[in-house]
Protein backbone atom coordinates (compact mmCIF):
# COMPACT_ATOMS: atom_id res chain seq x y z
CA UNK A 1 0.00 0.00 0.00
CA UNK A 2 1.71 3.15 -1.23
CA UNK A 3 2.09 5.71 1.56
CA UNK A 4 0.08 8.79 0.75
CA UNK A 5 2.50 11.59 0.06
CA UNK A 6 0.68 14.50 1.67
CA UNK A 7 -0.28 14.98 5.29
CA UNK A 8 -2.62 17.76 6.26
CA UNK A 9 -2.81 18.54 9.95
CA UNK A 10 -5.59 20.77 11.22
CA UNK A 11 -6.82 21.97 14.60
CA UNK A 12 -9.99 20.69 16.26
CA UNK A 13 -12.77 23.28 15.87
CA UNK A 14 -15.05 21.87 18.57
CA UNK A 15 -15.74 23.65 21.83
CA UNK A 16 -14.62 22.19 25.12
CA UNK A 17 -17.56 21.13 27.28
CA UNK A 18 -16.82 21.30 30.97
CA UNK A 19 -17.05 18.16 33.00
CA UNK A 20 -20.42 17.98 34.64
CA UNK A 21 -21.15 15.71 37.49
CA UNK A 22 -23.99 13.52 36.36
CA UNK A 23 -26.91 13.00 38.72
CA UNK A 24 -28.79 9.76 38.93
CA UNK A 25 -32.55 9.91 38.72
CA UNK A 26 -34.44 9.22 41.95
CA UNK A 27 -35.36 5.68 42.97
CA UNK A 28 -38.82 4.72 41.74
CA UNK A 29 -41.95 4.43 43.81
CA UNK A 30 -42.88 0.77 44.32
CA UNK A 31 -46.28 1.06 42.77
CA UNK A 32 -48.84 3.77 42.21
CA UNK A 33 -51.55 2.62 44.60
CA UNK A 34 -52.36 5.47 46.98
CA UNK A 35 -49.76 7.71 45.37
CA UNK A 36 -50.01 11.30 44.11
CA UNK A 37 -49.11 11.32 40.40
CA UNK A 38 -48.27 14.68 38.79
CA UNK A 39 -48.94 15.21 35.08
CA UNK A 40 -47.02 18.21 33.72
CA UNK A 41 -47.35 19.75 30.30
CA UNK A 42 -46.30 23.02 28.75
CA UNK A 43 -49.72 23.58 27.25
CA UNK A 44 -48.78 22.65 23.69
CA UNK A 45 -51.89 21.42 21.93
CA UNK A 46 -52.85 17.82 22.47
CA UNK A 47 -51.26 17.09 25.85
CA UNK A 48 -54.50 17.99 27.59
CA UNK A 49 -56.29 15.27 25.64
CA UNK A 50 -53.45 12.83 26.16
CA UNK A 51 -53.49 13.42 29.90
CA UNK A 52 -57.30 13.20 30.08
CA UNK A 53 -57.13 9.64 28.83
CA UNK A 54 -54.02 8.88 30.88
CA UNK A 55 -55.70 10.05 34.08
CA UNK A 56 -58.73 7.91 33.29
CA UNK A 57 -56.60 4.81 32.78
CA UNK A 58 -54.62 5.55 35.96
CA UNK A 59 -57.74 5.78 38.06
CA UNK A 60 -59.11 2.59 36.57
CA UNK A 61 -55.95 0.65 37.33
CA UNK A 62 -55.21 2.33 40.70
CA UNK A 63 -58.50 3.41 42.28
CA UNK A 64 -56.65 5.01 45.24
CA UNK A 65 -54.37 7.16 43.14
CA UNK A 66 -54.55 10.99 43.23
CA UNK A 67 -53.77 12.85 40.01
CA UNK A 68 -52.50 16.44 39.91
CA UNK A 69 -52.33 18.10 36.50
CA UNK A 70 -50.14 21.18 36.05
CA UNK A 71 -49.87 23.19 32.84
CA UNK A 72 -46.97 25.61 32.91
CA UNK A 73 -43.99 26.87 30.98
CA UNK A 74 -41.89 24.79 28.61
CA UNK A 75 -39.38 24.58 31.42
CA UNK A 76 -41.22 24.47 34.74
CA UNK A 77 -40.45 27.66 36.60
CA UNK A 78 -38.51 27.47 39.87
CA UNK A 79 -41.56 28.73 41.70
CA UNK A 80 -43.92 26.19 40.14
CA UNK A 81 -41.44 23.39 40.83
CA UNK A 82 -41.08 24.41 44.47
CA UNK A 83 -44.85 24.65 44.94
CA UNK A 84 -45.77 21.52 43.03
CA UNK A 85 -43.17 18.95 44.08
CA UNK A 86 -44.38 18.64 47.70
CA UNK A 87 -47.81 17.82 46.33
CA UNK A 88 -46.69 14.81 44.28
CA UNK A 89 -44.87 11.52 44.75
CA UNK A 90 -43.99 10.92 41.09
CA UNK A 91 -44.61 12.67 37.80
CA UNK A 92 -44.92 12.50 34.02
CA UNK A 93 -43.43 15.49 32.14
CA UNK A 94 -44.21 16.35 28.51
CA UNK A 95 -43.64 19.32 26.22
CA UNK A 96 -46.11 18.37 23.53
CA UNK A 97 -43.49 17.19 21.04
Amino acid at each position, binding site marked *: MRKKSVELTVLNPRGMVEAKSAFAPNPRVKDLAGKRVGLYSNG*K*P*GMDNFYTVFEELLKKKYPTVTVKVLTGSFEITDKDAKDWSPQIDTFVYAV*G*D
Partner: protein
Amino acid sequence: MPAVRSREISSAEFYKLRGEVKTVRPLAEGIFDALTSALTTPLTPQESSLEQDKKGGDDTPAEITVKAESYRVALEDFNQLYLDNRWGDGLPLIPPTPDAVKWMLSGTSRNPYEVLGTINPKHGIATIEKIAINAVMAGAKPEYLPVIIAAMEALADETFDDLHFLASAGSFNLLVVVSGPIAEEIGMEAGIGFMGHGWRANNTIGRAIRLATLNIGQTWPGINDMALTGRISPHTFITFSENTELSPWQPYHASRGFKADDSCVTVSPTHGESQLNHFYGGMIGTWTALGVLDRMVEDIVRTDRRGLFMWGTKGIGKYPGSGGGALNHLIVLFPELAAEFKKMGYDQPKLQDEIYQRTTIPYDEMNHAERKAIQTAMELGVIPADRKAVFQAALNPGAKVPVLISPENLHLFVAGGVPGCAFSFNYYRVPPYNQTSLITRLITGATLTKAGTTGVKSVPYGA
Protein backbone atom coordinates in the same frame (compact mmCIF):
# COMPACT_ATOMS: atom_id res chain seq x y z
CA MET B 1 -22.77 47.03 -30.15
CA PRO B 2 -20.12 48.22 -27.74
CA ALA B 3 -19.87 51.66 -29.36
CA VAL B 4 -23.60 52.41 -29.21
CA ARG B 5 -24.08 55.96 -27.96
CA SER B 6 -25.27 56.29 -24.37
CA ARG B 7 -25.49 59.13 -21.87
CA GLU B 8 -25.82 58.85 -18.07
CA ILE B 9 -28.03 60.48 -15.47
CA SER B 10 -27.46 60.34 -11.75
CA SER B 11 -29.46 57.47 -10.14
CA ALA B 12 -29.85 59.42 -6.99
CA GLU B 13 -31.66 62.16 -8.88
CA PHE B 14 -33.63 60.15 -11.43
CA TYR B 15 -35.42 57.77 -9.06
CA LYS B 16 -36.33 60.62 -6.77
CA LEU B 17 -37.51 63.15 -9.34
CA ARG B 18 -39.17 61.03 -12.03
CA GLY B 19 -42.58 61.10 -10.35
CA GLU B 20 -43.82 64.32 -11.91
CA VAL B 21 -43.07 66.47 -14.93
CA LYS B 22 -42.45 69.39 -12.60
CA THR B 23 -39.83 67.65 -10.50
CA VAL B 24 -37.99 65.92 -13.32
CA ARG B 25 -37.78 69.09 -15.46
CA PRO B 26 -34.40 70.33 -14.14
CA LEU B 27 -32.91 66.88 -14.65
CA ALA B 28 -34.11 66.67 -18.25
CA GLU B 29 -32.92 70.20 -18.90
CA GLY B 30 -29.53 69.32 -17.52
CA ILE B 31 -28.94 66.50 -19.97
CA PHE B 32 -30.78 67.93 -22.97
CA ASP B 33 -27.76 69.25 -24.81
CA ALA B 34 -25.74 66.10 -24.25
CA LEU B 35 -28.56 64.01 -25.70
CA THR B 36 -29.12 66.11 -28.79
CA SER B 37 -25.41 66.18 -29.43
CA ALA B 38 -25.25 62.38 -29.19
CA LEU B 39 -28.03 62.21 -31.78
CA THR B 40 -26.49 64.64 -34.23
CA THR B 41 -22.70 64.77 -33.87
CA PRO B 42 -21.12 62.48 -36.53
CA LEU B 43 -19.51 59.22 -35.34
CA THR B 44 -15.79 59.36 -34.67
CA PRO B 45 -13.56 57.04 -36.73
CA GLN B 46 -13.07 55.02 -33.57
CA GLU B 47 -16.80 54.61 -33.04
CA SER B 48 -17.45 53.53 -36.64
CA SER B 49 -14.62 51.13 -37.21
CA LEU B 50 -14.94 48.50 -34.56
CA GLU B 51 -12.75 45.43 -34.49
CA GLN B 52 -14.71 42.22 -34.56
CA ASP B 53 -14.51 40.68 -31.14
CA LYS B 54 -12.93 37.28 -31.48
CA LYS B 55 -15.29 34.39 -30.95
CA GLY B 56 -15.48 33.38 -27.30
CA GLY B 57 -14.61 36.95 -26.29
CA ASP B 58 -12.70 36.69 -23.10
CA ASP B 59 -9.01 37.42 -22.89
CA THR B 60 -8.49 35.04 -20.02
CA PRO B 61 -6.01 32.23 -20.57
CA ALA B 62 -7.26 28.67 -20.38
CA GLU B 63 -5.17 27.97 -17.27
CA ILE B 64 -4.15 30.16 -14.35
CA THR B 65 -1.24 29.33 -12.05
CA VAL B 66 -0.91 30.62 -8.51
CA LYS B 67 2.46 30.37 -6.75
CA ALA B 68 3.16 30.65 -3.04
CA GLU B 69 5.48 29.34 -0.34
CA SER B 70 3.02 26.68 0.76
CA TYR B 71 -0.12 25.10 -0.54
CA ARG B 72 -2.18 26.70 2.21
CA VAL B 73 -0.99 30.15 1.21
CA ALA B 74 -1.54 29.33 -2.46
CA LEU B 75 -5.10 28.33 -1.60
CA GLU B 76 -5.66 31.71 0.05
CA ASP B 77 -4.09 33.55 -2.89
CA PHE B 78 -6.21 31.54 -5.32
CA ASN B 79 -9.40 32.43 -3.46
CA GLN B 80 -8.54 36.11 -3.29
CA LEU B 81 -7.53 36.17 -6.95
CA TYR B 82 -10.75 34.56 -8.11
CA LEU B 83 -12.80 36.91 -6.00
CA ASP B 84 -10.90 39.93 -7.31
CA ASN B 85 -11.61 38.67 -10.84
CA ARG B 86 -15.29 38.31 -9.93
CA TRP B 87 -15.15 34.56 -10.50
CA GLY B 88 -16.04 33.59 -6.94
CA ASP B 89 -19.04 34.04 -4.66
CA GLY B 90 -17.39 35.25 -1.48
CA LEU B 91 -17.00 31.85 0.20
CA PRO B 92 -13.97 29.51 -0.18
CA LEU B 93 -13.67 27.71 -3.50
CA ILE B 94 -12.06 24.40 -4.26
CA PRO B 95 -9.33 25.01 -6.87
CA PRO B 96 -10.48 23.64 -10.23
CA THR B 97 -7.19 21.93 -11.10
CA PRO B 98 -7.07 19.80 -14.26
CA ASP B 99 -7.10 16.66 -12.08
CA ALA B 100 -10.08 17.86 -10.09
CA VAL B 101 -12.02 18.71 -13.23
CA LYS B 102 -11.18 15.31 -14.70
CA TRP B 103 -12.43 13.73 -11.48
CA MET B 104 -15.64 15.76 -11.70
CA LEU B 105 -16.18 14.83 -15.36
CA SER B 106 -16.06 11.14 -14.45
CA GLY B 107 -19.57 11.62 -13.12
CA THR B 108 -21.03 12.03 -16.61
CA SER B 109 -20.73 10.09 -19.85
CA ARG B 110 -21.44 13.22 -21.84
CA ASN B 111 -18.80 14.91 -23.93
CA PRO B 112 -17.02 17.77 -22.12
CA TYR B 113 -17.28 19.96 -25.18
CA GLU B 114 -21.00 19.48 -25.62
CA VAL B 115 -22.74 22.85 -25.72
CA LEU B 116 -25.95 23.08 -23.70
CA GLY B 117 -26.89 26.58 -24.70
CA THR B 118 -26.10 30.09 -23.56
CA ILE B 119 -26.50 31.89 -20.25
CA ASN B 120 -27.52 35.51 -19.81
CA PRO B 121 -26.63 38.32 -19.57
CA LYS B 122 -23.50 37.80 -21.68
CA HIS B 123 -24.83 34.80 -23.63
CA GLY B 124 -21.84 32.82 -22.42
CA ILE B 125 -21.58 29.34 -23.87
CA ALA B 126 -22.38 26.63 -21.35
CA THR B 127 -20.37 23.50 -22.04
CA ILE B 128 -20.25 20.36 -19.89
CA GLU B 129 -16.62 21.20 -19.10
CA LYS B 130 -17.31 24.75 -17.90
CA ILE B 131 -20.08 23.42 -15.72
CA ALA B 132 -17.72 20.79 -14.31
CA ILE B 133 -15.13 23.47 -13.49
CA ASN B 134 -17.71 25.47 -11.55
CA ALA B 135 -18.98 22.30 -9.88
CA VAL B 136 -15.45 21.61 -8.59
CA MET B 137 -15.21 25.17 -7.27
CA ALA B 138 -18.54 24.74 -5.52
CA GLY B 139 -17.30 21.68 -3.64
CA ALA B 140 -19.55 19.19 -5.42
CA LYS B 141 -18.87 15.50 -6.05
CA PRO B 142 -18.87 13.80 -9.46
CA GLU B 143 -22.12 11.94 -8.78
CA TYR B 144 -23.86 15.31 -8.44
CA LEU B 145 -22.71 16.50 -11.86
CA PRO B 146 -25.58 15.03 -13.92
CA VAL B 147 -28.05 16.86 -11.66
CA ILE B 148 -26.16 20.13 -12.05
CA ILE B 149 -26.01 19.63 -15.81
CA ALA B 150 -29.75 19.02 -16.03
CA ALA B 151 -30.44 22.22 -14.10
CA MET B 152 -28.10 24.18 -16.37
CA GLU B 153 -29.77 22.66 -19.43
CA ALA B 154 -33.04 24.05 -18.16
CA LEU B 155 -31.54 27.50 -17.54
CA ALA B 156 -29.82 27.54 -20.91
CA ASP B 157 -32.94 26.40 -22.74
CA GLU B 158 -33.71 28.95 -25.39
CA THR B 159 -37.26 29.40 -24.11
CA PHE B 160 -36.31 29.82 -20.43
CA ASP B 161 -36.02 33.31 -18.96
CA ASP B 162 -32.77 33.21 -17.04
CA LEU B 163 -32.08 36.90 -17.63
CA HIS B 164 -34.73 38.17 -15.26
CA PHE B 165 -33.73 36.34 -12.13
CA LEU B 166 -30.01 36.68 -12.79
CA ALA B 167 -30.06 40.43 -13.35
CA SER B 168 -33.25 42.08 -12.13
CA ALA B 169 -33.41 44.65 -9.34
CA GLY B 170 -36.02 42.58 -7.52
CA SER B 171 -33.52 40.06 -6.04
CA PHE B 172 -35.39 37.14 -7.55
CA ASN B 173 -34.21 33.72 -6.49
CA LEU B 174 -34.16 30.25 -8.05
CA LEU B 175 -35.97 27.13 -6.85
CA VAL B 176 -34.18 23.88 -7.78
CA VAL B 177 -36.06 20.68 -6.93
CA VAL B 178 -34.62 17.23 -7.61
CA SER B 179 -37.08 14.36 -7.87
CA GLY B 180 -36.79 10.65 -8.45
CA PRO B 181 -34.40 7.95 -7.23
CA ILE B 182 -31.17 9.85 -7.89
CA ALA B 183 -31.84 12.11 -4.92
CA GLU B 184 -31.35 9.38 -2.38
CA GLU B 185 -28.49 7.79 -4.32
CA ILE B 186 -26.42 10.96 -4.11
CA GLY B 187 -27.31 11.59 -0.48
CA MET B 188 -29.65 14.56 -0.79
CA GLU B 189 -31.51 15.47 2.40
CA ALA B 190 -35.30 15.74 2.24
CA GLY B 191 -36.17 15.49 5.94
CA ILE B 192 -35.80 17.85 8.90
CA GLY B 193 -33.74 20.91 7.97
CA PHE B 194 -33.85 20.09 4.26
CA MET B 195 -33.53 23.70 3.06
CA GLY B 196 -30.68 24.48 5.37
CA HIS B 197 -26.99 23.88 5.93
CA GLY B 198 -25.14 20.60 6.42
CA TRP B 199 -26.07 18.71 3.27
CA ARG B 200 -23.22 18.53 0.79
CA ALA B 201 -25.41 17.44 -2.11
CA ASN B 202 -28.21 20.01 -1.62
CA ASN B 203 -25.76 22.81 -0.84
CA THR B 204 -23.12 22.25 -3.52
CA ILE B 205 -25.59 21.50 -6.31
CA GLY B 206 -27.17 24.88 -5.65
CA ARG B 207 -23.77 26.51 -5.35
CA ALA B 208 -22.56 24.96 -8.61
CA ILE B 209 -25.55 26.49 -10.38
CA ARG B 210 -24.82 29.86 -8.75
CA LEU B 211 -21.15 29.78 -9.79
CA ALA B 212 -21.85 28.39 -13.27
CA THR B 213 -24.37 31.15 -14.02
CA LEU B 214 -22.07 33.77 -12.50
CA ASN B 215 -19.09 32.68 -14.56
CA ILE B 216 -20.71 31.56 -17.79
CA GLY B 217 -23.32 34.33 -17.88
CA GLN B 218 -20.67 36.71 -16.52
CA THR B 219 -22.74 38.55 -14.01
CA TRP B 220 -21.67 40.52 -10.92
CA PRO B 221 -23.70 42.26 -8.19
CA GLY B 222 -23.95 45.99 -8.75
CA ILE B 223 -22.48 45.74 -12.25
CA ASN B 224 -25.06 43.81 -14.24
CA ASP B 225 -26.75 41.81 -11.46
CA MET B 226 -28.83 44.62 -10.10
CA ALA B 227 -30.53 42.74 -7.25
CA LEU B 228 -30.94 45.71 -4.93
CA THR B 229 -30.88 44.00 -1.55
CA GLY B 230 -29.26 40.79 -2.71
CA ARG B 231 -30.93 37.36 -2.58
CA ILE B 232 -31.60 35.26 0.44
CA SER B 233 -29.71 31.94 0.34
CA PRO B 234 -27.44 33.72 -2.13
CA HIS B 235 -24.72 31.08 -2.34
CA THR B 236 -26.92 28.06 -2.96
CA PHE B 237 -30.27 29.30 -4.23
CA ILE B 238 -33.13 27.20 -2.79
CA THR B 239 -32.08 23.65 -3.59
CA PHE B 240 -33.60 20.47 -2.22
CA SER B 241 -35.20 17.17 -3.23
CA GLU B 242 -38.67 15.72 -2.91
CA ASN B 243 -39.07 13.22 -0.09
CA THR B 244 -39.89 10.16 -2.19
CA GLU B 245 -39.64 7.82 0.78
CA LEU B 246 -42.39 9.53 2.77
CA SER B 247 -44.51 10.95 -0.05
CA PRO B 248 -47.82 9.16 -0.65
CA TRP B 249 -48.03 10.56 -4.17
CA GLN B 250 -46.26 10.30 -7.48
CA PRO B 251 -43.18 12.48 -7.79
CA TYR B 252 -43.71 15.98 -9.16
CA HIS B 253 -42.18 15.14 -12.54
CA ALA B 254 -44.81 12.50 -13.21
CA SER B 255 -47.23 15.39 -13.73
CA ARG B 256 -44.88 16.83 -16.34
CA GLY B 257 -44.87 13.88 -18.68
CA PHE B 258 -42.01 11.88 -17.16
CA LYS B 259 -42.11 8.35 -15.78
CA ALA B 260 -42.42 8.05 -12.02
CA ASP B 261 -39.07 6.29 -11.75
CA ASP B 262 -37.24 8.86 -13.86
CA SER B 263 -34.92 11.29 -12.13
CA CYS B 264 -35.47 14.95 -12.92
CA VAL B 265 -34.63 18.51 -11.92
CA THR B 266 -37.22 21.27 -11.91
CA VAL B 267 -36.13 24.90 -11.89
CA SER B 268 -38.15 28.06 -11.50
CA PRO B 269 -37.33 31.59 -10.41
CA THR B 270 -39.13 32.87 -7.31
CA HIS B 271 -40.29 36.34 -6.33
CA GLY B 272 -38.01 38.47 -4.22
CA GLU B 273 -40.53 39.89 -1.80
CA SER B 274 -41.77 37.85 1.18
CA GLN B 275 -40.27 34.89 -0.49
CA LEU B 276 -41.59 32.19 1.75
CA ASN B 277 -45.28 32.12 2.40
CA HIS B 278 -45.59 29.99 5.47
CA PHE B 279 -48.62 27.82 6.10
CA TYR B 280 -47.33 26.02 9.15
CA GLY B 281 -48.47 22.55 10.07
CA GLY B 282 -45.80 20.77 12.04
CA MET B 283 -45.36 21.73 15.61
CA ILE B 284 -46.61 25.23 15.93
CA GLY B 285 -50.04 24.09 17.01
CA THR B 286 -52.38 21.25 16.17
CA TRP B 287 -53.02 21.28 12.49
CA THR B 288 -55.57 19.83 10.15
CA ALA B 289 -55.13 19.42 6.43
CA LEU B 290 -58.17 21.63 5.89
CA GLY B 291 -56.73 24.32 8.13
CA VAL B 292 -53.51 24.39 6.13
CA LEU B 293 -55.52 24.36 2.91
CA ASP B 294 -57.50 27.37 4.12
CA ARG B 295 -54.33 29.32 4.85
CA MET B 296 -52.92 28.44 1.44
CA VAL B 297 -56.08 29.54 -0.30
CA GLU B 298 -56.25 32.77 1.66
CA ASP B 299 -52.63 33.56 0.85
CA ILE B 300 -53.04 32.85 -2.86
CA VAL B 301 -56.16 34.98 -3.13
CA ARG B 302 -54.55 37.84 -1.24
CA THR B 303 -51.33 37.79 -3.26
CA ASP B 304 -52.81 37.12 -6.69
CA ARG B 305 -55.62 39.60 -6.38
CA ARG B 306 -53.03 42.35 -6.25
CA GLY B 307 -51.89 41.42 -9.73
CA LEU B 308 -55.32 40.95 -11.28
CA PHE B 309 -55.48 44.42 -12.75
CA MET B 310 -52.27 43.66 -14.67
CA TRP B 311 -53.51 40.57 -16.49
CA GLY B 312 -54.37 42.71 -19.49
CA THR B 313 -50.89 44.10 -20.04
CA LYS B 314 -49.32 43.35 -23.38
CA GLY B 315 -46.23 42.24 -21.53
CA ILE B 316 -42.75 43.48 -20.79
CA GLY B 317 -41.24 41.22 -23.45
CA LYS B 318 -42.66 39.86 -26.66
CA TYR B 319 -44.99 37.25 -25.16
CA PRO B 320 -48.50 38.31 -24.13
CA GLY B 321 -48.66 38.89 -20.40
CA SER B 322 -44.91 38.51 -19.94
CA GLY B 323 -43.94 39.84 -16.53
CA GLY B 324 -47.60 40.54 -15.95
CA GLY B 325 -50.10 39.78 -13.24
CA ALA B 326 -50.80 36.05 -13.33
CA LEU B 327 -48.61 33.83 -11.15
CA ASN B 328 -47.31 30.31 -10.74
CA HIS B 329 -47.32 29.01 -7.17
CA LEU B 330 -44.64 26.56 -6.07
CA ILE B 331 -45.99 24.86 -2.97
CA VAL B 332 -44.03 22.58 -0.67
CA LEU B 333 -46.16 20.16 1.33
CA PHE B 334 -44.70 18.09 4.15
CA PRO B 335 -45.21 14.34 3.89
CA GLU B 336 -47.80 13.98 6.66
CA LEU B 337 -49.87 16.74 5.10
CA ALA B 338 -49.79 15.02 1.72
CA ALA B 339 -50.80 11.79 3.46
CA GLU B 340 -53.79 13.57 5.01
CA PHE B 341 -54.79 14.99 1.65
CA LYS B 342 -54.53 11.57 0.12
CA LYS B 343 -56.80 10.16 2.82
CA MET B 344 -59.30 12.89 1.97
CA GLY B 345 -59.28 11.54 -1.57
CA TYR B 346 -56.87 14.00 -3.22
CA ASP B 347 -54.11 13.22 -5.61
CA GLN B 348 -52.07 16.09 -7.04
CA PRO B 349 -54.43 16.93 -9.96
CA LYS B 350 -57.49 16.77 -7.69
CA LEU B 351 -55.81 19.01 -5.13
CA GLN B 352 -54.86 21.47 -7.86
CA ASP B 353 -58.53 21.54 -8.90
CA GLU B 354 -59.68 21.99 -5.32
CA ILE B 355 -57.35 24.91 -4.68
CA TYR B 356 -58.25 26.39 -8.07
CA GLN B 357 -61.95 26.26 -7.29
CA ARG B 358 -61.43 27.93 -3.94
CA THR B 359 -59.07 30.67 -5.09
CA THR B 360 -61.74 32.86 -6.61
CA ILE B 361 -63.11 36.35 -6.09
CA PRO B 362 -66.78 37.17 -6.54
CA TYR B 363 -67.27 39.04 -9.80
CA ASP B 364 -69.44 41.52 -7.92
CA GLU B 365 -66.50 42.49 -5.70
CA MET B 366 -64.15 43.24 -8.57
CA ASN B 367 -63.52 46.79 -9.64
CA HIS B 368 -63.70 48.07 -13.19
CA ALA B 369 -59.97 47.92 -13.81
CA GLU B 370 -59.85 44.28 -12.76
CA ARG B 371 -62.78 43.28 -14.95
CA LYS B 372 -61.35 45.12 -17.91
CA ALA B 373 -57.96 43.49 -17.36
CA ILE B 374 -59.44 40.02 -17.62
CA GLN B 375 -61.36 40.96 -20.72
CA THR B 376 -58.20 42.32 -22.32
CA ALA B 377 -56.25 39.29 -21.20
CA MET B 378 -58.61 37.09 -23.18
CA GLU B 379 -58.29 39.29 -26.24
CA LEU B 380 -54.51 39.41 -26.12
CA GLY B 381 -54.14 35.67 -25.54
CA VAL B 382 -52.70 36.13 -22.05
CA ILE B 383 -55.53 33.85 -21.06
CA PRO B 384 -54.90 30.88 -23.37
CA ALA B 385 -57.65 29.76 -25.69
CA ASP B 386 -58.43 26.66 -23.64
CA ARG B 387 -59.16 28.76 -20.54
CA LYS B 388 -61.28 31.41 -22.22
CA ALA B 389 -64.59 29.67 -21.60
CA VAL B 390 -63.92 29.56 -17.86
CA PHE B 391 -63.27 33.28 -17.67
CA GLN B 392 -66.04 34.24 -20.05
CA ALA B 393 -68.47 32.43 -17.78
CA ALA B 394 -66.90 34.04 -14.71
CA LEU B 395 -67.28 37.59 -15.96
CA ASN B 396 -70.93 37.67 -14.99
CA PRO B 397 -72.81 38.99 -11.97
CA GLY B 398 -73.02 36.34 -9.27
CA ALA B 399 -70.14 34.35 -10.72
CA LYS B 400 -66.72 33.69 -9.18
CA VAL B 401 -63.53 34.67 -10.97
CA PRO B 402 -60.42 32.53 -10.49
CA VAL B 403 -57.24 34.43 -9.53
CA LEU B 404 -55.17 31.75 -11.25
CA ILE B 405 -55.26 31.21 -14.96
CA SER B 406 -55.15 27.42 -14.72
CA PRO B 407 -54.99 24.74 -11.97
CA GLU B 408 -51.66 23.76 -13.51
CA ASN B 409 -50.22 27.00 -12.20
CA LEU B 410 -50.15 25.25 -8.82
CA HIS B 411 -47.01 23.15 -8.56
CA LEU B 412 -47.01 20.74 -5.62
CA PHE B 413 -43.77 19.32 -4.20
CA VAL B 414 -43.57 16.95 -1.23
CA ALA B 415 -40.58 17.61 0.99
CA GLY B 416 -39.69 17.79 4.66
CA GLY B 417 -39.63 15.44 7.63
CA VAL B 418 -41.81 14.58 10.57
CA PRO B 419 -43.01 16.96 11.84
CA GLY B 420 -42.95 19.32 8.89
CA CYS B 421 -44.12 22.67 7.57
CA ALA B 422 -45.89 23.73 4.41
CA PHE B 423 -44.82 26.89 2.59
CA SER B 424 -44.71 28.32 -0.90
CA PHE B 425 -42.97 30.57 -3.36
CA ASN B 426 -44.45 32.28 -6.38
CA TYR B 427 -43.32 33.82 -9.66
CA TYR B 428 -44.71 35.13 -12.94
CA ARG B 429 -46.52 32.52 -14.98
CA VAL B 430 -45.07 34.12 -18.11
CA PRO B 431 -41.69 35.67 -17.34
CA PRO B 432 -40.68 39.12 -18.60
CA TYR B 433 -38.00 38.28 -21.14
CA ASN B 434 -38.78 34.86 -22.55
CA GLN B 435 -41.44 32.23 -22.96
CA THR B 436 -41.23 30.00 -19.90
CA SER B 437 -40.41 30.34 -16.24
CA LEU B 438 -40.46 26.68 -15.20
CA ILE B 439 -38.77 23.69 -16.76
CA THR B 440 -38.47 20.07 -15.66
CA ARG B 441 -35.52 18.29 -17.17
CA LEU B 442 -34.56 14.62 -17.29
CA ILE B 443 -31.24 13.77 -15.67
CA THR B 444 -29.06 11.87 -18.11
CA GLY B 445 -25.56 10.58 -18.64
CA ALA B 446 -24.93 9.56 -15.04
CA THR B 447 -22.06 7.11 -14.61
CA LEU B 448 -21.81 6.77 -10.82
CA THR B 449 -25.46 6.17 -9.95
CA LYS B 450 -28.05 3.69 -11.15
CA ALA B 451 -30.51 6.54 -11.68
CA GLY B 452 -30.03 9.21 -14.31
CA THR B 453 -28.26 6.98 -16.78
CA THR B 454 -30.68 7.03 -19.67
CA GLY B 455 -29.10 9.39 -22.02
CA VAL B 456 -29.06 11.80 -24.78
CA LYS B 457 -26.33 11.06 -27.26
CA SER B 458 -23.45 13.42 -26.70
CA VAL B 459 -23.04 16.23 -29.21
CA PRO B 460 -19.49 17.39 -29.84
CA TYR B 461 -18.75 21.12 -29.90
CA GLY B 462 -19.06 22.67 -33.31
CA ALA B 463 -20.98 19.74 -34.79
